[in-house]
């Protein structure tokens, strides 16, 4: 039933492939890096030296060499519409590479690895793989590509989560992550299949065209959409698809927790934005959605639920990592607000918020790791009196938390500011949603401040005046992150210009 392609066609295919490769260099480079790391690991077997980590770091940094030139390339799709290159995708390429690098850095700082695992083995390779996967998520323009990249990320994440093989929590986290992830990706694929069935297309842009042109069965559309949302929601960890995240975040090695809570979340958002904006036909206004399925109100519900649930439940947490996990659920809600608005400003705000979130969350996790190195605990009660013994860490953590709350003069504040600005720009349409955001952020203040409260206001039970001095590089990184967070809180023009520049999606014109 399928007739074979003629020679000319094959020629054409090969030609276009050749053309496309030029757009794909960073990914290729990173794949090479991935293999290189494995090779190095095989050669330097078992030995614990910084060779791997340094290579990973340098390698990731090297990818900029391939990413930067892509700015000059025209936005467009290639590999037969599988893959796009646009400012939006570029933004996330930077984002993920840098988060990969930060992950490597804080991994180097984490002493838990020394005790838990014998060799770093394929750890860094997997981190790189995850980075690749996330980059592809951000740039994929086809259901198939989405599925592949998502799975690539997930698989590496499963392994990384369970990387502490002898650690109960780590393994348990891996299992939960695996089961939950597998199911939801399965559902998503099923949803894809339905979409494919209705449109006979897998390319987002053409799907959108199809849906707009010919009708479709609303019922099937609903089902498909919900299943797809389930898949995306699991990635961004939004209520009600968040359940895996607290356990996974708590169990996973802290650097991986950071990576998951920032990068893979961001990848999920990238995916969501692209799919939601590109594949779903829209009128000028977001609320003029196609009949039958109402992404808009769906996302509103999810956002509101995430903000409330995340913040409210976080009030109860005694484990700092778990607390940050819940806060990340809440932040998913805040970021969604920006997507819901669905105009240039909204997207810009979303991207900006992601950047701010990136800074403060990595910072927070980094300090948590440093503290855990000294105290060997992530429990809130063990933070008592730390302000005296490690004032710098205390100050840094406080800044990051303040930024998470969204108070000036920090990047987090600007993020909230822009999100709310985007909403109020639509008039009184989103005021209620904005109010929820505001109120929940007041609630969040309480549990975030619990940490400084324990560090500074309370005396440690064992009144050992031993000051836990941190290594110089650790201090430098911490101070750098803190400084950046505050700097972008006071002068955020560059960030937001970058965000604005990046808020251009191929195949969709935003208003």
């Amino acid at each position, binding site marked *: 039933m399928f007739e074979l392609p003629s020679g000319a066609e094959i020629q054409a295919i090969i030609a276009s492939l050749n053309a496309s490769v030029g757009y794909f260099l960073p990914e290729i480079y990173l794949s090479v890096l991935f293999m290189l790391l494995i090779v190095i690991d095989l050669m330097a077997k078992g030995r614990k030296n910084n060779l791997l980590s340094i290579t990973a770091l340098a390698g990731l940094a090297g990818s900029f060499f391939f990413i930067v030139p892509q700015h000059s390339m025209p936005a467009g799709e290639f590999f037969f519409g599988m893959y796009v290159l646009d400012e939006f995708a570029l933004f996330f390429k930077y984002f993920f590479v840098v988060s990969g690098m930060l992950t490597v850095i804080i991994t180097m700082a984490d002493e838990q690895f020394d005790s838990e695992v014998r060799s770093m083995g394929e750890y860094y390779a997997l981190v790189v793989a995850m980075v690749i996967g996330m980059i592809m998520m951000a740039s994929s323009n086809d259901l198939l590509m989405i599925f592949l990249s998502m799975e690539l990320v997930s698989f590496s994440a499963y392994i990384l989560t369970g990387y502490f093989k002898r650690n109960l929590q780590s393994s348990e986290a891996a299992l939960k992550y695996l089961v939950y992830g597998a199911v939801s990706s399965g559902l998503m694929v099923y949803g894809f299949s339905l979409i494919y069935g209705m449109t006979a297309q897998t390319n987002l842009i053409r799907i959108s065209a199809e849906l707009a042109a010919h009708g479709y069965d609303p019922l099937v559309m609903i089902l498909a959409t919900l299943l797809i949302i389930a898949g995306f929601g699991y990635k961004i960890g939004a209520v009600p698809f968040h359940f895996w995240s607290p356990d996974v975040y708590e169990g996973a090695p802290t650097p991986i927790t950071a990576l998951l809570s920032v990068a893979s979340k961001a990848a999920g958002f990238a995916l969501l934005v692209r799919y939601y904006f590109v594949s779903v036909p829209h009128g000028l206004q977001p609320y003029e959605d196609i009949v039958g399925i109402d992404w808009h109100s769906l996302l509103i519900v999810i956002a509101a639920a995430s903000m409330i649930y995340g913040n409210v439940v976080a009030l109860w947490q005694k484990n700092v990592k778990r607390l940050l996990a819940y806060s990340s659920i809440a932040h998913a809600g805040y970021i969604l607000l920006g997507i819901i608005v669905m105009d*240039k400003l909204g997207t*810009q705000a979303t991207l900006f918020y992601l950047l701010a979130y990136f800074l403060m969350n990595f910072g927070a996790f980094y300090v948590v790791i440093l503290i855990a190195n000294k105290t060997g605990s992530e429990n809130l009660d063990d933070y008592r009196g730390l302000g005296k013994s490690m004032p710098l860490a205390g100050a840094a953590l406080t800044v990051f938390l303040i930024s998470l709350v969204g108070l*000036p*003069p920090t990047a987090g504040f600007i993020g909230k500011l822009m999100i709310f600005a985007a909403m109020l720009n639509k008039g009184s349409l989103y005021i209620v949603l904005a109010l929820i955001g505001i109120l929940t952020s*007041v609630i969040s203040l309480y549990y975030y401040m619990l940490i400084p*409260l324990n560090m500074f206001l309370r005396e440690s039970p064992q009144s050992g005046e031993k000051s836990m001095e941190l290594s110089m590089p650790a201090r430098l990184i911490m101070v750098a992150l803190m400084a950046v967070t505050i700097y972008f809180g006071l*002068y955020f023009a560059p960030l937001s210009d970058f965000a604005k520049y990046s808020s251009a999606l191929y195949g969709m014109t935003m208003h």
Partner: protein
Amino acid sequence: MLSLIVFLPIIAGLIILAVPSSQKQMIRVVSLVAALVQIVLAIVIWRGYDPSLAGIIAAPGGSPAGSFQFIERVPWISIDLGTFGKLNIEYFLGVDGISISMVILTALISAIGVLSSWPIQKQVKGYFILYNLLASAMMGCFVALDFFLFYVFWEIMLLPMYFLIGMWGGPNREYAAIKFFLYTLFGSVFMLLVMIGLYFSVIDPVTHNHTFSLVAMASQENYIKDAILGPNNVFWRYVAFIVLFVGFAIKVPMFPFHTWLPDAHVEAPTPISVILAGVLLKLGTYGMMRINFPLFPEVFQASLYVIGVFGAINIIYGAFCALAQQDLKKMVAYSSISHMGYVLLGLSAANSEGMLGALYQMFNHGTITAMLFLLVGVIYDRAHTRQIDKFGGLASYMPVYVGIVTVAWFASLGLPGLSGFISEAFVFVGAFSSETTRNIAIVSVLGIVFGAAYLLWSLQRMFLGTRKPDAAYDLEVGSDGHEHIHFHDWKGKLDLDGRELAMLVPLAVIIIILGIYPMPVIGLLTTSINKLVTVLSPVVLTSMN
């Protein structure tokens, strides 16, 4: 100039950061020097200030230059937001009659605070860094003319305050600190929404861009008619007004949002109480005068009576609560609730006398209450208790202290010849002259009596009479046949020592001078106040819309 006075403390803070934490004296001295320089700058500004310029709104032609003074205006952040113009945030400082007195007050109180922080021994370095941060933020709030900038300063104040109360406070400090933090934050987060809403509703007459400039926002013709907070959007304008008002009222603090204040005061160390009562509370009413009222004049006119009623409640209610307190500091805290009620009442009068009284009351309350808290601190340092009935007869043994106490106490109960009286008097004059608030004024006058009641009563119980049997100090007959008292584990001078005098005497002098001849301060305010009243008057509004 203004930048200097704002950021001087932060600079000091940075210097302190470099000083090793063992050099306590060094750290204190640095802060003190910074504070003194700040005072000098404040005096320079005061001398250089031209009272004939009105402020409040821009000069004809839309530029603030002809109306505000010491203006510093540089674009801070300017981002192209595509479809709807640019996001313009300016670094925009300036003073007019409303802020000038507050600037002076802030400089003064900060310096006093540094002096009274001298005895603090615990984590001196951290303390003074936070303290200087706080001082900068306060000063910034008073001179910022860009809403965004104002908001940033406003929020920056919270954190140092939280730690200063929480780390150097009394036994129940955690509770007080978090309570303060949550209350004030709750007040301010909604301000954020209003701020954004205003941004989209206001056009700068000069640049024709949206703007955060409070000056532009203060004149109604700059509003886009149909914008979310434009004149046609009445409902949301009311909502915004209420939101802002609550935000500021929490800071004032206005009944029923006042309950954080007594806790905060009781737990906070003396200098922080001084700052809190002396400056922070003023920010609430200042915000009302600078932002809340001029931006929504018609709503303000509509809600005069309500504001007045709340003012009256504050006055009477605060006085009664103070009457019942056993803890001296708590009594003083409630007294400042009562006194801030006068400010609200004066504002609700919406005429020059009332507004001027209110503004002048803000200044006087700053000096007087600072003095009260310092005096409470003095006795607390010695006796380690503030229970009123643990004293008695101190007048015989600490004459200087009690002498100053008498000045402060009578200033607080509004004795003529001391500054507090004039402001309260004009608040009443204004409130009574306005038809709307006349009845409220008549009721609030009772506050005068009860104010006198709790103050005199505490005066009698603590300082007059003779030593109570269970007093916090021992009585002994010295070699010279005279009686002496001594407090347990108090090594210092029994009566006021030099440092304490250095804090108290200047305040007392100011209070007396301004009580006899208020023009030095009032002269700065009148033009602006009259302007403000004009801006708020319904006549002008009708002419505008």
